[in-house]
């Protein structure tokens, strides 16, 4: 009996060592020198897959079904080959979205649905509790067996003992305490527990060494190696049955279904998700784990069959439970130290599983079950509380204790009905229900929330009906007739042969129906339903995790205040931690402090990620919505989602727009071309007109020159007259050429302008003085009507003079032959000066009043009357006046003379003048 004290001491010492390792790991992590940041620790911690079910249960299962224990380890080996594809994507997605559990993962994928998260949590808890019960059973029986040493007696647990004498209860409470102490010491936004991982890796090492030690002791100590052991075992009855697969179809079928089941479990057991996804430090560590983890499984299974056969040979049939061979073989051969090591190995296998599983489940319960309910429960007033980090920790600790007690209850009630391995498989089948929603969510964009909900519900119900209820029936909670005759004696509803399906084992049967219902409902409902825009956005984030840089904030519109957001995060993480996080975020953006942050979509996204780590994605969204005024997505945003369809749509819209632009450009080009052609035609007209006009004076010059040349004896008077004509025509020709050049300059904008403020009356007086000789010759009278004082105008003096001279000489040309008279009047208008030059000639027809401003148009018939001018004076004058921002026009009627008027804007230059004066400075420069 003194061994009892030793066992307790050893157990406590072992737990103490674990705690020390965890504490050290956390300290190192805080100091930034992580001890778990290497692939070996990662692979070892993944071996939390091997629980006491492996440690004790493999031998038990091997005793019953021979090599039938292996599929549970072959499946994970096969899945390891797919880790690089599947698990890496899960890690990438979870890191990008701060996902901390499977419930969170599924909830986040389907539009951050709290309902879905709650359902997943419920399934996980119900599914995994038997598994926790299994660990309690393993620890307490191994303790009781060792306690009897040197006798080897199977403990008769349960009924005889009250709860207070039951070791399992103390084991449960001790493990709960232990988990609480180092699983929930503080709240972390990433929900990572470095110390725990270090301890788990250590435990994996311990259980492997312990099992190998027993295996080596049995194989090489009790026997002479494998061959000897197997040779002796050949004498056992039924040995052939254990070393071959039984009846063909059934056994191959169950073999395959077990491999498939364990493939799914390695991904979807909550503790595996916690260790391989949430606690992953660097996704490259996964590479080495791909072969290290299967290697570990191989190592821990090599000696299972030898130990089984040794046990079967050593102990008379029925005296010792095969589940206990690992422990009883060393005991039977008085290897106290080895037995103690085995006990510690079994303890580490159980504690490792319990710790990680309860932490993972407590996170799920807190984030996806309790928090969403509290958030909706107005009376609880969660939204008003200041610091919620304490509450969160409290919920988690409570959840851990609750899980352990539920496990204990299950163990008390049902523990004896099943061998260890069957309980484990029931849990495996439960978590396999996550596969369609998880894998579908990662690779299929169309999967909807409704599809996931219906698939999970249906799969879970079928699982419960075909596995859980029969387990209850076998434990005596339900009448056995439920299994044997079906409920209400309806044969086709028999839970172990649903719809009459037989020929599969229990697990295969349940797996078939539950996954069929699950997958069918998931795919069917998804295909015939519609996704909301948020579901769609999340689907893209998950499915395209390797393409998208992993940010979901582009689909968010709304407004928030930075201080409110920080305060909100502070209530869950603690104010100091929140301040630290936001200061870090601000530093990342290159800002001096968090006070300078802008409340944009990115900030809210960051806050949501921080919160998601602490309370889950679904709750985080609800909480943030309380301080953030979210605006619904507009049609444009939805269209902007980078969906393949809408991408194509956007692309074709862009194409359409481009072709519109192209059409517009073509139209413009066509118009420009037409204008160019018109200009070309005008130029041709102009040139032909100019040459025609030039020919007229040239012809007369040539004709008179020839006369003079041919008739040297011409009279001097005649001769003088002809020479005068030649001179006059030459002058006209020169003037015409000058004017054509002038006009060309004006039209091309290359004319030089020297604008200055002018007194218009002075310019008019100058013009009158210049023309006085001409007027006197023609006997024309001129009268001026000028105000004493006129405001200055901005104009080029020479050009203005040119206009006035042109108008006056025109007037002189066309005024009455006798008593010709010209009146020049200046009027001051509000914004301009108006100059009118009036003659008393024949006047101009209305029809001609516009044409006279065209080039080379003169009033009168060019053919019969000798042209009086060049036909360019008025067009040039109009161009000049318009250049100054004024206007030139004529008023006349037949027989009543004509009045040519122009205006010049006053004072400050008009925009047009300004523009030109701008060019003027350029020209000067």
């Amino acid at each position, binding site marked *: 009996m003194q061994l009892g004290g030793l066992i307790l001491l050893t157990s406590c010492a072992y737990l103490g060592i674990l705690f020390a390792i965890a504490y050290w790991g956390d300290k190192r992590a805080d100091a930034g020198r992580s001890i778990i940041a290497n692939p070996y620790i990662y692979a070892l911690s993944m071996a939390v897959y091997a629980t006491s079910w492996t440690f004790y249960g493999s031998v038990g299962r091997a005793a019953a079904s021979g090599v039938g224990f292996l599929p549970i380890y*072959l499946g994970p*080996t096969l899945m390891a080959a*797919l880790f690089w*594809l599947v698990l890496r994507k899960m890690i990438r997605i979870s890191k990008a979205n701060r996902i901390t559990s499977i419930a969170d993962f599924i909830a986040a994928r389907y539009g951050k649905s709290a309902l879905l998260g709650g359902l997943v949590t419920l399934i996980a808890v119900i599914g995994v509790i038997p598994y926790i019960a299994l660990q309690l059973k393993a620890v307490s029986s191994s303790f009781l067996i060792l306690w009897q040493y040197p006798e080897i007696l199977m403990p008769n647990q349960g009924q005889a003992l009250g709860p207070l004498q039951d070791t399992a209860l103390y084991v449960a409470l001790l493990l709960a305490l232990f988990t609480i102490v180092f699983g929930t010491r503080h709240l972390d936004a990433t929900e990572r527990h470095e110390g725990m991982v270090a301890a788990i890796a250590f435990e994996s090492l311990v259980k492997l060494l312990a099992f190998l030690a027993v295996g080596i002791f049995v194989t090489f100590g009790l026997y002479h190696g494998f061959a000897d052991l*197997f040779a002796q075992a050949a004498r056992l009855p039924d040995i052939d049955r254990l*070393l071959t697969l039984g009846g063909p179809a059934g056994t191959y079928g169950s073999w*395959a279904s077990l491999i498939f089941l364990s493939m799914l479990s390695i991904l979807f057991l909550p503790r595996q998700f916690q260790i391989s996804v949430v606690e992953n430090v660097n996704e490259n560590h996964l590479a080495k784990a791909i*072969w290290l983890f299967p290697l570990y499984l*191989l190592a821990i299974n090599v000696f299972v069959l030898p130990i089984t056969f040794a046990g079967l040979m050593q102990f008379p049939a029925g005296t010792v439970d095969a589940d206990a061979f690992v422990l009883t073989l060393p005991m039977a051969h008085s290897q106290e130290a080895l037995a103690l090591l085995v006990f510690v190995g079994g303890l580490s296998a159980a504690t490792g599983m319990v710790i990680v599983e309860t932490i993972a489940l407590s996170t799920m319960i807190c984030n996806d079950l309790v928090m969403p309910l509290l958030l909706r429960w107005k009376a609880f007033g969660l939204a008003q509380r200041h610091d919620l980090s304490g509450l969160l920790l409290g919920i988690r600790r409570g959840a851990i204790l609750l899980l352990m007690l539920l496990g204990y209850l299950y163990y008390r009630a049902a523990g004896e009905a099943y061998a260890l391995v069957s309980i484990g498989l029931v849990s495996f089948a439960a978590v396999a229900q996550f596969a369609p929603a998880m894998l579908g969510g990662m690779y299929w964009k169309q999967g909807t929330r409704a599809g996931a909900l219906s698939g999970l519900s249906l799969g879970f119900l079928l699982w419960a009906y075909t596995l859980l209820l029969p387990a209850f029936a076998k434990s005596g909670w339900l009448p056995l007739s439920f299994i044997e005759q079906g409920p209400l004696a309806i044969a086709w509803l028999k839970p172990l042969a649903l719809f009459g399906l037989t020929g599969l084992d229990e697990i295969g049967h349940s797996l078939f129906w539950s996954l069929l219902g699950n997958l069918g409902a998931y795919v069917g409902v998804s295909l015939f339903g519609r996704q909301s825009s948020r579901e769609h956005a999340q689907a893209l984030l998950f499915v395209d995790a390797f393409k998208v840089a992993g940010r979901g904030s582009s689909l968010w519109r709304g407004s928030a205040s930075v201080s409110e957001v920080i305060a909100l995060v502070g209530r869950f993480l603690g104010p100091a931690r929140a301040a630290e996080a936001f200061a870090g975020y601000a530093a990342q953006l290159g800002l001096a402090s968090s006070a300078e942050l802008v409340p944009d979509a990115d900030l809210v996204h960051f806050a949501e990620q921080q919160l998601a780590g602490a309370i889950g994605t679904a709750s985080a969204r609800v909480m943030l919505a309380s301080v953030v005024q979210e605006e619904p997505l507009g049609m444009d945003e939805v269209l902007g989602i980078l969906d393949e369809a809408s991408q194509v749509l956007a692309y074709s819209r862009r194409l359409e727009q481009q072709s519109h632009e192209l059409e517009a450009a073509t139209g413009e080009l066509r118009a420009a071309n037409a204008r160019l052609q018109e200009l070309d035609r005008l130029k041709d007209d102009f040139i032909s007109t100019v040459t025609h006009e030039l020919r007229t004076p040239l012809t007369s010059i040539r004709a008179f020159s020839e006369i003079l040349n041919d008739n040297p004896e011409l009279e001097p008077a005649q001769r003088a007259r002809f020479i005068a004509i030649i001179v006059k025509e030459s002058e006209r020709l020169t003037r015409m050429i000058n004017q054509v050049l002038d006009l060309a300059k004006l039209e091309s904008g290359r004319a030089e302008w020297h604008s200055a403020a002018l007194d218009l009356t002075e310019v008019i007086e100058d013009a009158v003085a210049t023309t006085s000789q001409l007027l006197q010759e023609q006997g024309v009278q001129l009268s001026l009507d000028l105000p004493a004082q006129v405001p200055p105008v901005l104009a080029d003096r020479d050009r203005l003079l040119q206009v006035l001279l042109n108008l006056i000489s025109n007037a002189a040309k066309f005024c009455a032959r006798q008593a010709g008279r010209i009146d020049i009047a200046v009027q001051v208008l509000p914004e301009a000066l108006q100059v009118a030059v009036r003659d008393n000639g024949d006047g101009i027809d209305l029809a001609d009043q516009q044409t006279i401003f065209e080039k080379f148009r003169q009033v009168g018939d060019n053919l019969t009357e000798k042209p009086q001018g060049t036909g360019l004076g008025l067009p040039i004058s109009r161009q000049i006046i318009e250049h100054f921002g004024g206007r030139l026009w004529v008023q006349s009627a037949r027989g009543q003379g004509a009045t040519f008027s122009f205006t010049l804007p006053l004072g400050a230059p008009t925009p047009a003048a300004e523009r030109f004066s701008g060019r003027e400075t350029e020209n000067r420069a």
Partner: protein
Amino acid sequence: MANHTLRAQRLVALFMLGCLLFSYPLLALFDSDDRVFGIPLLFAYLFAAWALLIVLMMLVIERSNR
């Protein structure tokens, strides 16, 4: 990271090899009570195939690391 997709393809091929090794037709070949070096054939086959798979995975991972 171009060798990442190649690595993934090699691993998928190994996965399929594993499925083949551990399922019906091939498994039936070794499902007898013969012995190799005194070790039951099925037991030997399963562990040998398992070990082979692990070695191949190790080669795929470690060689593409270089």
